[in-house]
């Protein structure tokens, strides 16, 4: 529209990226900007995550040295430690990594969209509905379907209901969130009702589903969740520049030529998919979605929307929380949901108290 830029004297033919960014050029068409600091940050996070994974694989009733763990991972090691690491601890570790990443990424998206650090997928009813459905399966009042599948069905039902009641996402997804809170309340009440109708032993067997735990996971769902997290992460990267607009007001976003409704729906769909899948593996571990993105934001110094970092910090929090839950009161195993609540709780209160200093978010 303004061609004079092209006739600039002394214009360098080489494209200069903004400070602190690296430009990846592929042919003439593809130019992708990469924030150097974010890359460094994420590499560090991956390293720390790997380190804690190795530790987690080694620690337990039977201790295995990190060296042995690494040997096992590369196909060596004694049959005993191979069995413990590969068959017992690794599946659980993977479940922790995937659920943590999923919850945290979903939380980051939700918080960005609602411009509120307290907006987590945990309060929009998805996890409560998943809980109610899973519990109904455990206590034998639902159809004879596995709890994981029922949890997934519950998440889907809650989403459909919330969308139906809200009639769209509303400004900043608020309307959807409120509909979700309502549905969550109903689902919570139904869960209590179910638990009160059966014997205490049956109610106890439903316990993992009410607090969030990795012990009741279904291996098949873990695979699906892993694939889901990978797909959603890629989608987040593709839409990153659109999601970056979410904190602006609707008018600014429209003025910049982006379709706000479309961005919001994509963010919501990603959020719901991640939460639904994660809940069907681990039950409601909502506070990870609060803590993970928060750490990522602090690391990113509140610049931009740290999507990848959030996934990594979430995975890290979950891995460590599960390790603590398994070991701290051994032989009693604390569900991971309880550990995150105990750790995340004081943090939540701190946010509530501290929030006055930061006006938005």
């Amino acid at each position: 529209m303004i061609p004079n830029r092209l006739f600039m004297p002394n214009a360098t033919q080489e494209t200069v990226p903004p400070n602190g960014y690296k430009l990846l050029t592929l042919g003439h068409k593809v130019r992708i900007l990469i924030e150097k600091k974010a890359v460094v940050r994420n590499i560090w996070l991956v390293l720390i995550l790997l380190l804690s994974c190795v530790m987690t694989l080694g620690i337990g009733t039977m201790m295995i040295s990190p060296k042995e763990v690494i040997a096992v991972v590369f196909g060596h090691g004694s049959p005993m430690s191979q069995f413990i690491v590969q068959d017992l601890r690794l599946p659980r570790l993977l479940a922790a990594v995937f659920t943590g990443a999923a919850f945290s990424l979903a939380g980051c998206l939700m918080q960005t969209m609602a411009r509120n650090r307290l907006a987590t997928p945990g309060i929009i009813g998805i996890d409560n509905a998943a809980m109610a459905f899973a519990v109904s399966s455990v206590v034998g009042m639902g159809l004879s379907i596995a709890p994981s599948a029922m949890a997934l069905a519950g998440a889907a039902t809650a989403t459909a209901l919330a969308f139906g009641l809200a009639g769209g996402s509303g400004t900043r997804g608020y309307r959807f969130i409120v509909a979700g809170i309502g549905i969550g309340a109903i689902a919570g009440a139904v869960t209590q009702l179910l638990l009160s109708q059966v014997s205490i032993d049956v109610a106890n067997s439903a316990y993992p589903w009410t607090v969030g735990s990795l012990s009741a996971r279904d291996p098949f769902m873990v695979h699906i969740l892993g694939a889901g997290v990978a797909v959603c992460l890629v989608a987040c990267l593709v839409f990153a520049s659109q999601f970056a607009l979410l904190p602006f007001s609707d008018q600014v976003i429209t003025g910049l030529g982006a379709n706000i409704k479309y961005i919001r729906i994509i963010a919501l769909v990603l959020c719901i998919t991640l939460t639904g899948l994660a809940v069907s593996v681990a039950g409601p571990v909502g506070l990870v979605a609060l803590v993970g993105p928060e750490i990522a934001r602090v690391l990113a110094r509140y610049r931009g929307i740290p999507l990848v970092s959030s996934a990594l910090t979430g995975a890290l929090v979950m891995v460590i929380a599960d390790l603590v839950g398994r070991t701290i009161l051994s032989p009693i195993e604390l569900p991971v949901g309880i550990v995150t609540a105990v750790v995340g709780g004081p943090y939540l209160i701190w946010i509530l108290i501290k929030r006055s200093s930061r006006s938005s978010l």
Partner: protein
Amino acid sequence: MLKWFSVTPAQRPLPSVLMSALFVLTFCCVLSLLLGAGGLAPHASLLTLLGHGSADAEFTVFHLRLTRTLVGLFVGLTLGIAGALMQAVARNPLAEPGLLGVSAGSSFAVAMALVLGASTATLTVGIAQIGALIGCLCVIGTAKMQGQRNDPIRLVLAGAALSSLLLAMTSLILLFDQRAADEIRFWVTGSVAGRDTSTLISVLPSMLLALICILYTAKPLASLALGERVAIGLGHKPRRIRGIVIIAVALLVGAATAIAGPVAFIGLVVPFAARALVGPDIRRTLWLCLPLGPIIVITADIISRLVAQPAEMPLGVLTAIVGAPVLLFIVRSHRLPTL
């Protein structure tokens, strides 16, 4: 009667609205005595009520159903008033004890008490009230932080996060005590059935205290509705008013929760209905909440007895099913510009 529809809610004469509501309430109470899940037919109940029933029927009507109705009356009264007070003090139509974590605080305290050796039958009301107070204090923390842009959803989000935290803590406690877990799972469904009139008597002193608090703050609250600065300008002390109201809310919610377990959404629906009937002035809505709360709880209780015969649906489930759409409706109505 017809004249009511032609004027705005704020212009409707309070005494006549109040009288009609009392009439409806009486009707509900009688229905509550007549109808039930048991084998007693309504006409037999009516005969019993008039003094011609068998001993069995008398036990059902005067012992089971009357107690239940009284408990419903009390729970509706306290939760309705608590909701209205909370909404006035937070200046937020979505502020509801259940949504904001006050009930969850109460549950937490009750779980603690159970683990320490109490049982639901001998549970002291004070414990639940202290729990409610803790929940309230956390909420004030968030209410204080509402910036110039009064955003109703923020408070609800904070409350929801707080509730989920307190519930997780409750679960943690119960993990270590099977007996408490067994007891509390009945209590948390929220019900007015199978309670004892003696617990009702034991809460009376604290209710008296709550009443004094309300009488003291009703007028200042009305000016607080115009904004904090206006209230200061009119010579009130918002901080003190808020503190007193929070204590009243904690007493009310704690008492209701100790007796009936956490019953959500009553504090949302009742003031909402009251505002729709007589307008937003807190001095008028508070009066109307008195009969409206019991009407809604007793009606919900009657439905919960009838809908799943011969079993019963707990009150808490029913109020959640009724309350959630109301919540959404309030959000969708044009009153909230940020939505």
